């Protein structure tokens, strides 16, 4: 893994990395949501205090090359199986956000010898409601202003330069052309992978019981894209999964409440992740 790229077959994935602050700290593989993780994401620094952060951009997202014909969720799962193969660490904690949470759940169902723990943050991926009820809005068919309203506890306080669901609302503020090109790539690529069935695998719920690593399911209390009730049910299908809610956050608790998010993850990782002399209240 050099120069911010990770070779997965023909795909040279862009990778954002934060070195671990202490020897022996766990490796944390982050699977991003509908947008690649910004280097300015407010949780990155605090999270790196608990482990080495490795955050690739999915094929077609950020500055990663397009997926070519490897354009299904099946392919994404195998991309991340290959990423786990390529990471030097013997054990890895996978943290999947939103769309990336779906990938992480699929990955964990299939299993991987390096997978040590799993964190799912407001993930998509399963169908629970009846055939005439949606579990979440269709991201491409819904008014972007409505998505923005539903995605955040307080849309006005979302961090600048970090884009989640409803990113369209930020156009015209301080958004640069480069950011718009990146968001367009991300939006197009998400559509390739997730148009239909929209952001779920109808079979996944039948196999979540195969997940055999400690699992934390985190949810923003104000998430009106995918509600906490959906999250509770999701967690209930994973043996032994812990479900926890973060107040004052919507679909992206890692962006709206980064300190609380890192606290929850740190607690889940356990004492070996903590640095000597470091206390949670020291974090921003």
């Amino acid at each position, binding site marked *: 893994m050099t120069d911010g790229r990770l070779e997965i077959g023909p795909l040279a994935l862009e990778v954002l990395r934060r070195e671990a602050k202490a020897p022996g700290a766990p490796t944390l593989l982050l699977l991003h949501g509908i947008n690649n993780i910004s280097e300015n994401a407010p949780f990155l620094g605090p999270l790196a205090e608990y482990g080495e952060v490795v955050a690739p951009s999915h094929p077609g997202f950020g500055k990663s090359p397009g997926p070519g*014909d490897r*354009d299904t969720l099946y392919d994404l799962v195998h991309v991340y199986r290959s990423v786990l193969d390529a990471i030097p660490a013997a054990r890895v904690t996978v943290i999947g956000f939103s769309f990336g949470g779906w990938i992480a759940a699929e990955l964990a169902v299939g299993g991987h010898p390096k997978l040590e723990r799993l964190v799912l943050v407001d993930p998509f991926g399963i169908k629970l409601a009846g055939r005439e009820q949606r579990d979440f809005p269709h991201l*491409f*068919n*819904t*008014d*972007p202003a409505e998505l923005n309203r539903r995605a955040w506890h307080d849309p006005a306080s979302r961090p600048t330069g970090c884009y989640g669901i409803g990113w*369209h609302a930020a*156009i*015209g503020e301080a958004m640069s*052309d480069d950011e*718009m*090109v*990146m*968001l*367009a*790539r991300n*939006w*197009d690529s*998400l*559509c*390739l992978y997730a*148009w*239909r069935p929209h952001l779920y695998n109808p079979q996944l719920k039948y196999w979540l019981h195969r997940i055999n690593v400690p699992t934390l399911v985190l949810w923003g209390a104000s998430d009106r894209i995918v509600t906490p009730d959906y999250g509770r049910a999701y967690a209930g299908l994973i043996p032994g999964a812990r479900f926890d809610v973060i107040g004052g956050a919507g679909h992206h608790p890692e962006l709206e409440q980064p300190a609380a998010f890192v606290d929850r993850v740190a607690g889940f990782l356990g004492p070996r992740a903590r640095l000597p002399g470091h206390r949670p209240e020291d974090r921003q």
Partner: protein
Amino acid sequence: MELWNHCENPYPFVPNEVLDEAASVRASLPNKYCDPKIAARLYDEVFDEYRLCDDIGLHIVTNEHHSGINNLWAASPVITGIVANITRNVRILSLGTLITVRPDPVRVAEEYATIDVLSRGRLEIGFVKSGATEMVSGDANPMRIREREWEAIDLIEKTLTTHDGPFSWEGKFFTHPHVNIWPRPYQQPRPDFWAATSDLPTCAELGRRGIINTLLFGGYDRTRQAFDAYKKARSQASLTAPGEDRFSYMAFAYVGDTDKEGLRLGQKIAWFLTVSIKSAPQFSKFQPGAVVPEMAPAAWRTGASRRPRPTNLDAEALVGQGQMFAGNPDTVARQIKEFRKRVGGICHIIMMTRQGLVTHAEAEASFRRAAKDVLPQLQDLPPIDADETAWEARRAAAAQ
């Protein structure tokens, strides 16, 4: 030259306050605003217009759009099959069924083969890539639609031209292990193919394949560029130069008794642009694939579409931009002949006349004048001098 009548069978009867309030008049406008009794009357009127066209020598174009006020032709093969049955003489172009939305091109080929037999070989098959609200109402992934369209065209062509028993297709977008349609098409080896596009690489591919290239409201310059790309691709592939019969253009058209009447009624067609394409941002500029990512900043900041839209909707301005033919018969004939020269030669003019607020009676009056007084003026035209028209096109572009 040949004249074609294209009617989208719009539904301009929804109250304006409803349309003003709606974020989109396609895809999401509730169908409670569509009175089926009015729709039935509209179908009768347009089929009567098609019967008239059959009598007077105007060919017929059908198409389809879905879930909106702009078009009641929900399934082009259904409508085309009816047209095949109620006409006897003219050619019928389906332009087309939305093959990027239809899940099974084999079924599309079978429907077209049936229509070709029904019409005793009068069918022409047109392809459109589609997009925007159609992807939503058809639940079709808006990404990769160009690749999907070509694979669908390839599969339809093989389906129409294979006569020795089942073949198998396992492509990227479509699979069908046992393709063997009955009936096979009446025309051999198959009906002519058309495609609507102004995308230059796609025009080039149409050229290499010999598919008729039609532009929709492209105006002089864009149409010329498209046709030149078609010709250049054929030349580079060492293929014969295309005849004018490979080129087509759709424009708003109204043939009046006088220029004043032509422009006045032509103005009623502009409803198509001013009202019937109102679309919510998620169905337009923010739809995945709507623009290439590098064009997103311009599109998102300005609301620009990937498709060029006329900016001035005054009928005279539309005429000036080559997007409308309107006036008395002599004027319209002169406009079409001028268009033919400026785009470097063209055979098929598709007239969008029964559009917007134009009534049944007004449409029929225009069709009669077009057939009686315009069409004869478009026969036996002298060959286009490619060098001369290229120079004139450059001069006209420079003067604008």
